[in-house]
């Protein structure tokens, strides 16, 4: 009910009804009063003039045959159709019209207004001076025709008022519809926008200027809202991406720190261990020189020396990892060269059920670092790939290329040369994948692997300012991607320096 009362249309119509209720009754009464007074004024004026003329006529009548002439005058008045009563009094003598009239009640006093004495007859008396004496002329005029005319006029006024009221209500209904329809459309459109459909345009066609302006401002607000929403959504997405990057960097930083800590620890242990191994190897070799070759002890010593060499090799690998592979002076070299050398070596030792494919462009792909370390990286990665396909066979693909701004989040924007090593082996479990670069982490049987291969690769790539990533699908294979910063500019500078020196 409150919603109905508050609606614009009901209010408009209500206001019009209230105005009509306040204005129409007094307007009707006022117009009726003017009509009544107009008719009454005309009636009274005409009968006063008429009766005065009658009195003047009577006053001017000659004395001879006065009665007959007076009665004729009264007959003339009655025959006019407006006079219902006509009488002349001359002392005790009373003269009436010879024409019979309907009997009416004759009041003692004269009338001065239409409807006076409420007898439907307007009585008027004139004193007629005739020389030595006076007479009175009394006439009664029929008020009924005038009253009927007034009633008819009032009915016409009432009818006009009714038509006016009906027309006003119709106009109010139409006007309220004209005003309210675009407002309702705007309201529905605004509801849709509020419900989330912000792309619905608030477009309402109306000839009312205020509605047009309201529509314009609402549409402007909607567009602002849409723009703000889009900006907000974009900012939220950017924040989510940057948050993901931050978490990833944090994770990588922790990982690097962990690797670095382990590397430092391992380096310290390896250094001490190397110091211990040096006398063991030295004295074992001296002892072996003192013992005859066919002696069983010589065989034992050779085994000790071999084990000491393996231990020393292991220590050297640990030291290589922990020292950050910076033992060599970095140079700019073509990436393709150490890769091809490593693959040539691998083709000699890999079984024939594993196909080795190199996909490389013709460019030189210069990178800065130690070529022998890149050689070791390729050997390590390909060895892992070969191990993954040793039972089933498959394809080992080495791909070289260049990429600008790699999509991986951990790689900073820039130009990189990419070395990818892919296999079609059994893949790596996601739980294992998170730890593959950690030192001493291995899934191989005890004695088959040291868990240092990929951590050494990681250390080499990091020392060259690169990044290594891995993606794997269990059952489909694994791909290691090594991003090394392109050294095209350095290569050009080196070439320029060489030509200048020459």
């Amino acid at each position, binding site marked *: 009910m409150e919603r109905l009362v508050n609606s614009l249309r009901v209010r408009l119509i209500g206001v019009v009804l209230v105005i009509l209720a306040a204005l129409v009754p007094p307007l009707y009464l006022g117009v009726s009063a003017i009509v009544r007074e107009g008719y009454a*004024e005309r009636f*009274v004026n005409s009968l006063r003039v008429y009766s005065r003329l009658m009195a003047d006529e009577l006053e001017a009548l000659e004395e001879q045959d006065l009665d007959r002439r007076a009665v004729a005058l009264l007959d003339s008045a009655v025959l006019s159709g407006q006079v219902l009563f006509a009488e002349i009094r001359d002392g005790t003598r009373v003269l009436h019209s010879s024409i019979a009239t309907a009997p009416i009640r004759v009041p003692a006093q*004269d009338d*001065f207004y239409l409807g006076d004495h409420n007898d439907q007859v307007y009585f008027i008396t004139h*004193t007629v001076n005739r020389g030595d004496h006076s007479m009175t002329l009394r006439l009664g005029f029929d008020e009924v025709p005038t009253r009927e005319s007034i009633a008819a006029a009032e009915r016409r006024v009432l009818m006009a008022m009714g038509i006016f009221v009906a027309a006003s209500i119709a106009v109010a209904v139409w006007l309220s519809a004209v005003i309210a329809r675009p407002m309702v459309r705007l309201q529905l459109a605004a509801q849709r926008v509020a419900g989330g459909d912000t792309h619905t345009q608030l477009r309402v066609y109306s000839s009312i200027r205020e509605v047009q302006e309201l529509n314009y401002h609402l549409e402007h607000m909607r567009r602002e809202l849409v723009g703000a929403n889009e900006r907000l959504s974009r900012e939220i997405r950017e924040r989510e991406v940057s948050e993901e990057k931050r978490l990833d960097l944090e994770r990588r930083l922790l990982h690097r720190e962990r690797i670095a800590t382990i590397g430092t620890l391992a380096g310290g242990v390896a250094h001490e261990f190397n110091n211990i191994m040096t006398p063991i190897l030295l004295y074992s070799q001296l002892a072996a020189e003192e013992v005859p070759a066919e002696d069983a002890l010589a065989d034992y010593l050779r085994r000790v020396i071999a084990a000491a060499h393996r231990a020393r090799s292991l220590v050297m690998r640990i030291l290589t990892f922990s020292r950050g592979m910076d033992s060599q002076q970095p140079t700019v070299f073509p990436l393709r060269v150490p890769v091809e050398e490593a693959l040539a070596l691998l083709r000699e030792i890999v079984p024939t059920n594993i196909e080795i494919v190199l996909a490389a462009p013709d460019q030189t792909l210069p990178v800065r670092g130690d070529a022998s370390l890149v050689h070791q990286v390729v050997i390590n990665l390909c060895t892992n790939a070969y191990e993954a396909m040793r039972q089933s066979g498959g394809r080992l693909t080495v791909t070289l290329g260049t990429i600008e701004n790699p999509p991986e989040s951990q790689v900073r924007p820039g130009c990189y040369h990419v070395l990818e090593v892919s296999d079609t082996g059994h893949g790596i479990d996601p739980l294992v994948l998170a730890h593959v670069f950690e030192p001493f982490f291995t899934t191989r049987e005890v004695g088959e692997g040291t868990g240092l291969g990929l951590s050494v690769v990681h250390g080499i790539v990091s020392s060259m300012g690169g990044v290594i990533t891995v993606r794997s699908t269990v059952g489909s294979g694994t791909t290691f991607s090594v991003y090394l910063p392109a050294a095209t500019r350095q290569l050009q500078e080196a070439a320029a320096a060489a030509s200048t020196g020459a």
Partner: protein
Amino acid sequence: MRRLLTLLLILSLVAPARPASQAVVLVVGADSPAIEMDSVSVRKLFLGVPVLVNGKPLHPLRNRSDPLLDEIFFQQIVAMSQSSYDRQILIGVNRQGWLRPEEYSRVEDVVAALNADPNAVSYMWQRDVGHNPKIRVIRVVWSD
């Protein structure tokens, strides 16, 4: 019978007494040259038309001391409605240059004006004239 007589006595006491016969008369000052005027002259006079007596114009005075007297004036003297009379007066004043009748709201003022101007003509109730020797009745305008 006795009851009927008692009822008639009560009714005669309760019923409003019929007013005494009254009349409106046309009056002039005692020194006025006007002796007699017919109804047309009276009407002309109060409609502003110049009416001469002995070469001098008469001056109409409207007596507005009583509303009923006003109605009798319109009905018996000028024989028209009030609005018609006002219209006629306006036409006479504006088009013909006639004079509008002077108006007085008190009988005493009317009497004083009549005494002051021998050419003045007015009307009043017969009872207001009484036996005033300074006023002379020249015509009965209306009698009840």
